[in-house]
């Protein structure tokens, strides 16, 4: 599968938007916890949606280095390429 960063990022946004009140800023570099306001249940939901949508399995250890949509999109690119 072609792992296009921008397409992946756009798809991530569609998963993320419903998880915060309207008007919450969301960009590549938004901190998902402190700025966007995800809690631990949101994070589980997000990972579930990402795994189902991209048909990948996101290893737990990767989360430790993910703070922003950019980090997450890059991790997905790598997982798809390793696929």
């Amino acid at each position, binding site marked *: 599968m072609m792992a296009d960063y921008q397409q992946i990022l756009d798809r991530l946004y569609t998963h993320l938007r419903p998880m915060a009140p309207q008007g919450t800023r969301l960009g590549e570099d938004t*901190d*998902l*916890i*402190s*700025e966007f*306001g*995800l*809690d*631990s*249940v949101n*994070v*589980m939901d997000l*990972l*579930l949606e990402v*795994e189902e949508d991209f048909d990948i*399995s996101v*290893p*737990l*250890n990767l*989360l*430790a*280095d*993910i*703070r922003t949509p950019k980090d997450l999109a890059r991790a997905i690119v790598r997982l798809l390429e390793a696929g």
Partner: protein
Amino acid sequence: MIRTATPTINNRPLRCADFPTLAQALDYAAQGVTGYNFYDGRGRLRAALPYAELRQRAQATAKRLHGLGLKRGERVALIAETCPEFMEFFYACQYGGFVPVPLPITINLGSRGSYIERLRRLLHSCSATAAMAPAEFLSFLQEAADGLKLRFVGSPADFYALEEPAVELESSGPDEIAYLQYTSGSTRFPRGVVITQQAVMANLAGIVGTGLAVRPGDRCVSWLPFYHDMGLVGFVLGPLASQLSVDYLGTRDFAMRPRQWLALISNNRGTIAFAPPFGYDICARRIHRAELDRYDLSCWRVAGVGAETIHAETLERFADFLAPAGFNRHAFLPCYGLAESSLAVTFAALDQGMVVDQVDRRALEDRMSARAFAATDGRGERVRAFVNCGRPLPGHEVIVRDADYKALPHRQVGIVSVRGPSLMSGYFQDAASTHDALGPDGWLDTGDLGYLTEAGLFITGRCKDLIIVNGRNIWPQDMERLAEEQPEVRLGDVTAFVASHPKGGEIVVMLVQCRLTENERRADLVNRLQRMIYSEFGIKCRIELVPPKTLPRTSSGKLSRSEARRRFIQRVGWNQRSEIIVEAPKAAVSS
């Protein structure tokens, strides 16, 4: 790798943990055909590890550990991922006379730094001489061990590359340490519970013999982490000591796809599965009604509940929701325990389900008396309901004491104290904490509050200030310390507690006395704290900056969390449905 799960029915007579040591328990289990099975998040069998194969692999790894020059009794730290290698190394320590120390996996978004710090504190606390992490966690462990004096840090493959000298193995004896357990206690000031072989074997005999009354045909299913006492003692050691097969699901896989737990029970005809209340809650909330006809849970004879205060409504909701899938509500088995007593202290009676005691809320609040509530007493809002956690395992005693260590009569709330053969020897290299918890008379002060009746033990609150969110225990002093490390915050300027929101759910609140006036700097502090708290504890927290000298203090000058909480609830108007705070007697307040 074997791709068939180990069978439920064994070809050897069932023995209920009547072994002097864990190594001897495995020697016997290895004669049969049962074992451990590991499933992925999509329900596929990833590995099967029959006890016979585990024994072989464990003995080989024990020799490699000897080859490293490890001395008897030295600690081997293990990142406790739900995988066959953890089992192999844990039992290698049993055969080699070393002490395994399961380490937690607490990874959240962006938490690399705080996770490494936590591991480092643990490696230091147990003065480990060797440490193992599955390959995907090795970088965390290596960084954590950097600068500490460990002989060897590696992945299973790194250990397999080591020499396997032909040493004669002498397994860990009844008086020797079986493992150190770090789940109980604060993350900032970790305390390792020391459990000997005879302590854990006594507990296991009580659990599988009396509490569960294990029988041929039983099969266990578990997603509980191996670094937690219920996961380790209840679902790693217990099944092995009674030669049962177990089906494991990773903890995060359960959190993401709770249906897999039910699917495993249903498909493999599991009979014994435990969870803290939040596990049952996630299932009831996240599983779709439409999929219930895929499951047949009529095989599930023991649905154990422990590890947190049990709220009856949570379990009722689960039972109602899953009744169409054949779940029997009498399978609920509430129990009480703690790592300091290996795992279990009391078990409710089998096949009874959850039994609730209704008490008069006012008497509880005013006099710490759990007076039975009579129907004639009037309105329901004056009632508080507690779940019966049952009676002590054979050979164990439970009493409820006041601040002067005097035993209290039935239905009087006090500190739950436990005595018996399963108790820890103490906290590892921490005489002061050991002295605080274990009296010379052999009674362990659990710090939990409860009362006794003819029918059993009722827990009214665990460790007064402990914050429990989604099954995670958080010590408020750990959160407070983190805030105090910020340059804008002074020591003693922070208090953290949990409060019930009137719309349901519990909110963790942190109040910070703060001298900053500029809005931007105030917002920066709040954001930073939120991020750090999430990354270290995995929770969201409501943070409020309050003016200096506004947090309430006790007469001795210490911050009073309970008073801060009471005032906060009043100020934000949540008092309509607020929890009652049953104050602990003086002795339990030390923090």
